[in-house]
């Protein structure tokens, strides 16, 4: 098996800044939950049973390789703690898979847009992660992968309840579709609370960048469907898309209003943040995320030239605590991390200007 390269670099397909509305929608993700019919769910499975699941799924992925394209499977227990956390920071695996699962594995595509998690809350979690607003495309890929695996695996499926999952919140389609949206103007104009509570009333839910229980950082929010039973996949995707289109429009309107009403103040804010990122010697993760958000807005508004959005996405991940350790080696305390973080951002931003 080839080297494990996934944790060496930060850049991943989802960060490319491509796809529709990529100035506001950073990425689109679809994950589907599946289980094997014959074995208990990971929650109650013995180590031996979990081992069987891992073997069966990895073998199925191997058999389906003509459909799936180049993939690499990795048992998580063979990775170092840092590498596991880096995979989480890159959003290729969930925190639960990295931290709480026994006999866990992940099967990753070379471009990192597809990952199949094994022994998470469910036996199988198929994840497709695309740049920009491409929920439909991500779903289409995920369902193909699902079909390819199903050719070799007997799924737990019930005529009435659909795909059976460990948590009743996923049963039915097992589908969770989500988009990561950058909404600085809605936050600045204090409209975000209203939007988020409206969103939660139409069967959608809002989370931070790293999923359930994580805090929103740098004005990045993940919006996803809550309902998985009683609606088909198409309806779920359509519903999410319909709402997100409206949110994009609100964000654009809020940006226009800000530029119209207080352009100089907004410009000052963006440029101050740009100045801080290019000159600061110490910066914590929260401030970095906020400043990067300001700079991204500046790029979107055409105020900062020659700074690719891809780089900003990459920096969001590069400046996460474990990635810093991975990059600079050795263990470091929080204040050392803040130093390295500032240095890394400085270097990257200055280099992009040369």
């Amino acid at each position, binding site marked *: 098996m080839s080297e494990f390269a996934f944790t060496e670099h930060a850049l991943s397909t989802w960060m490319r800044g491509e796809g529709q509305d990529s100035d506001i929608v950073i990425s689109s993700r679809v994950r589907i939950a599946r289980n094997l019919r014959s074995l208990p769910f990971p929650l109650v499975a013995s180590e031996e049973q979990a081992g069987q699941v891992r073997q069966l799924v990895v073998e199925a992925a191997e058999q389906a390789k003509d459909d799936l394209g180049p993939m690499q499977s990795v048992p998580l227990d063979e990775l170092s703690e840092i590498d596991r956390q880096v995979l989480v920071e890159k959003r290729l695996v969930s925190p639960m898979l990295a931290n709480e699962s026994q006999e866990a594995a992940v099967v990753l595509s070379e471009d990192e847009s597809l990952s199949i998690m094994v022994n998470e809350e469910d036996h199988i979690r198929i994840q497709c992660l695309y740049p920009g607003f491409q929920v439909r495309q991500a779903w289409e890929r995920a369902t193909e992968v*699902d079909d390819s695996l*199903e050719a070799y695996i007997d799924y737990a*499926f019930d005529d009435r*309840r659909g795909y059976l999952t460990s*948590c009743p919140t996923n049963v039915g*389609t097992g589908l969770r579709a989500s988009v990561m949206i950058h909404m600085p103007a809605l936050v600045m104009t204090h409209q975000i609370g209203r939007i988020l*509570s409206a969103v939660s009333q139409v069967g959608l839910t809002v*989370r931070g960048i790293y999923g359930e229980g994580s805090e929103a950082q740098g004005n990045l929010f993940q919006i996803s469907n809550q309902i998985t039973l009683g609606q088909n996949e198409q309806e*779920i995707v359509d519903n999410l898309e319909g709402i997100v289109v409206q949110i994009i429009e609100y964000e654009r309107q809020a940006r226009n209003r800000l530029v119209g009403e207080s352009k100089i103040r907004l410009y000052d804010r963006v440029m101050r943040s740009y100045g801080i990122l290019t000159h600061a010697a110490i910066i914590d993760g929260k401030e970095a995320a906020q400043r990067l958000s300001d700079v991204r807005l500046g790029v979107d508004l055409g105020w900062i030239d020659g700074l690719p959005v891809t780089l900003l996405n990459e920096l969001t991940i590069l400046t996460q605590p474990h990635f810093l350790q991975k990059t600079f080696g050795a263990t470091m305390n929080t204040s050392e991390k803040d130093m390295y973080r500032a240095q890394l951002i400085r270097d990257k931003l200055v280099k992009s200007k040369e």
Partner: protein
Amino acid sequence: MLCQECQQRPATLHFTKIINGEKNEFHICEQCAREKGEMIPGTSGGFSIHNLLSGFLDFDMAGKTHTGGASQAQQLHCEKCGMTYAQFRKIGRFGCSSCYKYFDDKIDPLLKRVHGGTVHVGKVPKRGGADLQVQREIDALKQELQERIEKQEFETAAQLRDRIRDLELQRSQR
């Protein structure tokens, strides 16, 4: 608008709760919401979705008969993985795919609350779900047949009837 709880801070969360058809409107501030333990999107209130779910289940139990219903529920368990209904209520997650069968009539109210529906209408596995796929096709054809008959389009109706017969035959031979 001021928060209806503390009457001090502005109300930033506005939502409507419908429980058993009874509608209640809430206008509260974030701090009171957090104190009351209401779900706030984008923040973690310190309790998980699974706690919430088991809350729903407790609620269902409370609504049921008081005569021995609870103790009977304690005994209920999945014969395949051994998970008891009491355990399921506590952790909010199933132990295996058979749990759905053993707890079947208990989980309808829960699913209704979480999803609004209780029956899957989405994707069916290509291999494992072939029968259901055929059944869904037959159902759709029967419905169309009914419509054609009502419109007196008997020629199309006859074709549909033949197609349904073929499918039913196919299914019985499998």
